[in-house]
């Protein structure tokens, strides 16, 4: 088979997106939906078909030259290797299931063509990031996912709040994009190429300060897309979008793009100890921050949004601790169980009649469909890291990687990770108890659930539960498949005695049980939620929005106001207006001369005549 056929993987969703955007509303609805689903499903099948291409060093496919300027030639090129292949498989697989779910979820939506067009376009952009062979193609996808995210968060733009959330997400991620663009330009200035392989190969020759600078710029770029501190404020608001969007973009794929970027450039990033420490610190602090915020949230999707932020923080911690395999394993399992959780949350919201508030739910275990409860519980167990689920193994690997770094800083971050694990179990079981336990508190009857919204949950929940098999540690007889598959890309070898591993696993299990016990004690029977300054502080995300408002938005508005009122209106406009007024006044004074009376004009004639006469007389006299 021809390698160029690899381009079909990203281009099929693009073709379907274009078709849906141009003709979607004229096609029969069923056809438009089928087109959207089939485009992504075909990508998935092609990925499976081409799986062997990723063996060894992978396959590089070139479609043509994109830019050729002087020495630099940037081609449209894809790299299908051990790192991008599992990611492609995950993106297309999860996206297929979410597209199916979306067909059910949006069955009453009038504007389906725009929705499916944007969703397909998003899959294309995400695949461009994943498969990119050079950083410019990656950047194309990077901006593409941002655009689609903006369009889909504000999908119901008739409500101002949704449109504003979309704008906020776009602007905040854009701040990160600027840093990424700066890193790209710097890399191009240093190496004269943007090919990821070439950059990674040449990275060893860079000065340490340059490496640290580049790593920090890449980290800030990744922070924007992955909602890490300090660019994390947009993710919770992004839940204004339709639930399939939250599941696909804001849980499974786009927010992990930052992690993927750092993994892709790991050979460069890993050369800078300070940069690695910065990545780990950002990850651990975000994980802890988001976990505390999730404790107090009242909207089901916001809890999940903060948990996403927290889990992506774990992935950053893994990259910082040098374990790409750990980060990728957590990325994959997290994508499965978080997508399942989000889609189940969408079902719950739909069942309860568009009720978002978990304090007004309750009793869904007995009243709601049995399978929904089971799926949500499976996802929640994975998220909490209950033993033997996918989340347990992937999270343990990360904590182990942080622990085995051994430096005091990493031990501190490991402690933060452990605390986060406890909080994760606590807020996850709080969510489960508030939604499913007890008696209904808010809704009176349950709505019907379309079949298409039920069964795509099952594969995802199962994949989440069994996700541990991806990278099963040798401790329990696993082969660490993912780490071996990644080969040279897997990062640092994690060396730990079995005793340490057992101890850490036991500790993690203990924390999960502790979190579960605390949540059961507090929320098994509903006794109302705390409402004190502390919980309000957490509910508003530590006042991050207010801080951004105070530090960025208000000074910006003030400067803009100064420019508009002070310079534009007071200086420019006033000068021009003054000139115009003077001219008008002049004309007004001249206007009075023309009284319209013949006698006045005649008098004017005479005076003129006399003056001319006088002039001639004077000339005569001289």
């Amino acid at each position, binding site marked *: 088979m021809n390698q160029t056929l690899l381009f079909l993987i990203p281009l099929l969703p693009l073709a379907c997106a274009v078709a849906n955007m141009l003709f979607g509303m004229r096609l029969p609805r069923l056809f438009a939906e089928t087109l959207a689903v089939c485009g992504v499903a075909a990508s998935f099948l092609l990925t499976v078909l081409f799986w062997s291409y990723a063996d060894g060093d992978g396959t590089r496919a070139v479609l043509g030259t994109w830019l050729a300027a002087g020495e630099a030639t940037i081609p449209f090129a894809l790299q299908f290797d051990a790192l991008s292949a599992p990611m492609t498989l995950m993106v297309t697989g999860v996206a297929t299931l979410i597209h199916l779910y979306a067909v059910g979820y949006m069955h009453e939506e009038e504007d389906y063509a725009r929705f499916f067009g944007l969703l397909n376009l998003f899959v294309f952009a995400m695949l461009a990031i994943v498969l990119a062979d050079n950083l410019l193609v990656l950047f194309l996808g990077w901006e593409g996912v941002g655009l689609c995210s903006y369009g889909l968060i504000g999908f119901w733009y008739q409500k101002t709040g949704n449109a504003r959330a979309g704008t906020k997400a776009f602007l905040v991620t854009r701040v990160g994009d600027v840093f990424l663009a700066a890193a790209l330009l710097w890399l191009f200035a240093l190496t004269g190429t943007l090919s990821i392989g070439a950059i990674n190969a040449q990275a060893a020759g860079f000065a340490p300060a340059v490496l640290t600078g580049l790593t920090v710029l890449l980290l800030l770029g990744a922070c924007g897309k992955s909602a890490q501190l300090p660019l994390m404020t947009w993710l919770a608001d992004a839940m204004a979008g339709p639930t399939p969007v939250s599941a696909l973009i804001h849980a499974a794929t786009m927010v992990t793009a930052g992690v993927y970027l750092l993994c892709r450039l790991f050979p460069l990033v890993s050369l800078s100890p300070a940069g690695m420490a910065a990545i780990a610190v950002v990850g651990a602090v975000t994980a802890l921050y988001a976990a505390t915020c999730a404790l107090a949230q009242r909207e089901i999707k916001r809890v999940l949004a903060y948990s996403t932020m927290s889990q992506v923080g774990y992935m950053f911690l893994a990259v910082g601790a040098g374990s790409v395999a750990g980060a990728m394993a957590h990325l994959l399992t997290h994508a499965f169980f978080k997508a399942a959780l989000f889609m189940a949350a969408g079902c719950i919201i739909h069942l309860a009649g568009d009720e978002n508030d978990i304090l007004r739910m309750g009793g869904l275990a007995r009243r709601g469909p049995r399978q929904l409860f089971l799926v949500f519980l499976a996802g929640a167990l994975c998220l909490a890291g209950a033993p033997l689920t996918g989340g347990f193994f992937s999270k343990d690997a990360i904590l182990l990687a942080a622990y085995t770094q051994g430096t005091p800083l990493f031990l501190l971050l490991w402690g933060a990770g452990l605390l986060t694990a406890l909080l994760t179990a606590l807020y996850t079981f709080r969510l489960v108890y508030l939604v499913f336990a007890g008696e209904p508190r808010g809704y009176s009857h349950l709505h019907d659930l379309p079949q298409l919204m039920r069964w795509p949950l099952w594969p995802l929940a199962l994949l989440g539960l069994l996700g541990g098999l991806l990278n099963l540690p040798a401790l329990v007889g696993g082969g660490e498949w993912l780490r071996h598959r990644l080969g040279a890309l897997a990062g640092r070898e994690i060396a730990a005695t079995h005793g340490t591993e057992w101890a850490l696993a036991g500790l993690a299990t203990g924390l999960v049980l502790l979190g579960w016990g605390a949540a059961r004690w507090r929320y098994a029977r509903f006794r109302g939620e705390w409402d004190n300054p502390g919980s309000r502080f957490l509910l508003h995300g530590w006042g991050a929005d207010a801080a951004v408002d105070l530090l960025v938005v208000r000074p910006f508005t003030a400067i803009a106001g100064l420019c508009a009122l002070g310079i534009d209106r007071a200086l420019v406009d006033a000068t021009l207006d003054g000139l115009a007024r003077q001219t008008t006044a002049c004309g007004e004074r001249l*206007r*009075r*001369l*023309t*009284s*319209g*009376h*013949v*006698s006045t004009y*005649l*008098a004017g004639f*005479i005076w003129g005549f006399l003056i001319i006469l006088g002039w001639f007389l004077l000339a005569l006299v001289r």
Partner: protein
Amino acid sequence: MIVPFAHVLIFAAILFVMGLGCVLARRNLIMILIGVEIMLNAAAVALVGGSAHWRQVDGQVFVVFLMAMTSAEVAISLAMVVYLRRRRGTLEADKFDGLRG
């Protein structure tokens, strides 16, 4: 010629100033027109005087033209006076200020 040329010119000038005074001082349209006629005739007197003085016929020819033109002008202006009187009911020159800016 018995009358000296200077006298003719002084007479013409006096006549012209009188006509001018009539045009400036009077507010009635007919009187203003009469003033204009007087001024034109003052010019004609000066032309005839010059013609006699230099013994050239051009001045007299010019006066004949002037008379023809004056009669035509009077015919038009009197028609306008009648029209304005009918339309506005007055001949006060200061009542007409349609050209005011």
